[in-house]
């Protein structure tokens, strides 16, 4: 089986969202997760600009510049939605009221350290946004990212090399090759692509991997990326 594309990774993460959860989706890859949660399942997506109950993107003729998510996308509201100010939004985030925060990342370490906000660019300014608050305050922190960089360097490491977002916060990682939990013993692989050996996955990972006794195949339906 080929590595998952970004939509398939989003689909896979969506399978672990349960009815009744309050979920924050990070800008970029994670926002696609909402597309794979059926509309009749009561899941509330929170956006840190204060929207609780983000619905699908607005059709162009109905788009409203005042109804946006944290990524400036023009959205709709789902039934039961509400909107609060930033102070209340972050009380929700920091205070442990968000069930799951799904974030993109540059690097994750075997102890759950997360690096996802500063690429150390000398030309571009830093962007921390709500990442540190979400990583620190959400009950579970799930990361979605490609297993290795474009240059083939592992993103799952013994220790992060980039500036940290939060220490020991990540609970689960979805990559294009595997689904891993951050366990007390380190990284524990729950699912991996069929046809791949444990040694092959380990070779693309910078941290020592453990493999679950009930290791399963990572599968996803065919989903085509636009463009």
């Amino acid at each position, binding site marked *: 089986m080929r590595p998952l594309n970004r939509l398939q990774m989003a689909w896979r993460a969506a399978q672990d969202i349960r009815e009744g959860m309050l979920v924050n989706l990070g800008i970029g890859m994670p926002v696609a997760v909402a597309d794979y949660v059926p509309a009749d399942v009561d899941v509330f997506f929170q956006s840190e600009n*204060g929207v609780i109950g983000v619905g699908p993107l607005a059709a162009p003729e109905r788009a409203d510049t*005042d109804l946006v998510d*944290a990524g400036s996308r023009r959205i709709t509201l789902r039934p039961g939605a509400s909107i609060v*100010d930033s102070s209340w939004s*972050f009380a929700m985030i*920091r205070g442990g009221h968000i069930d799951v925060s799904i974030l993109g990342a540059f690097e994750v370490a075997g102890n759950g350290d997360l690096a996802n906000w500063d690429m150390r660019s000398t030309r*571009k300014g830093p962007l*921390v946004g709500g990442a540190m*608050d979400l990583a620190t305050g959400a009950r579970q922190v799930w990361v979605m990212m490609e297993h290795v960089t474009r240059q083939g360097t592992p993103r799952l490491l013994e220790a992060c090399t980039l500036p940290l977002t939060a*220490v020991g916060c990540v609970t689960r990682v979805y990559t294009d090759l595997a689904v891993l939990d951050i366990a007390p013993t380190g990284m524990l692989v729950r699912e991996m692509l069929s046809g791949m050996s444990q040694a092959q996955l380990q070779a693309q990972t910078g941290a020592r991997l453990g493999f679950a006794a009930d290791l399963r195949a990572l599968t996803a339906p065919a989903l085509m990326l636009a463009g």
Partner: protein
Amino acid sequence: MPIDKCVSTASDAVADVGDGATVLISGFGGAGFPNVLIRALRERAPKALTLVVNSATHRYSLTHELIAAGLVRKVVCTAARGHDKEPSPFERLWVEGKIELECVPQGTFTERIRAGGAGIPAFYSPVGFGTELATGKEVRLFDGRPHVLEHAIKGDVALVRADRADRYGNLTFRYAQMNFAPVMATAAKLALAEVATVVDQPLPHERVQLPGNFIDRVLAVGT
């Protein structure tokens, strides 16, 4: 004299913002940017401002005009990365060392401003512990977990955008316009609101999202 906080022009609204002022600017993701007031401030052109604003580079906010005009000494923000490959006005000055940056996690940013308006000089937060944004800050354990001491932010002036106002300065917001407006209005000595409409009758109490006592001047700007 009866209260009437309405002013007739944007230049009247920003009339006494002076050099060295700390300016709190609301708005997030395209909603609630007080762009009429920001442009009036650029025309008034006070120097050496400190801006407290969520993004230094957002493409729908006119904050970048204040920075490009050389009026800004320091920016306190959560996002300083531009959208384009080419550096934004902020990034160009920052790379050249001509503007100071204090990057703050967004929840800490809003809570520091909230504290500034709520009479709390400092507080401990778990956010940022173990990261370079907590460098040099006091750390204390609560319930066995490390927390970082964060100080309140106060401003000389706050600029906010709302939907409706009455002459008492009571405000309502459309959708996600509210974001930082309540905390910024409470934390500044002078709070200025631009609104789509000023209504003749007092707003119904259950509709008021920011009480007029926190607002000093109201400018109707249309939609």
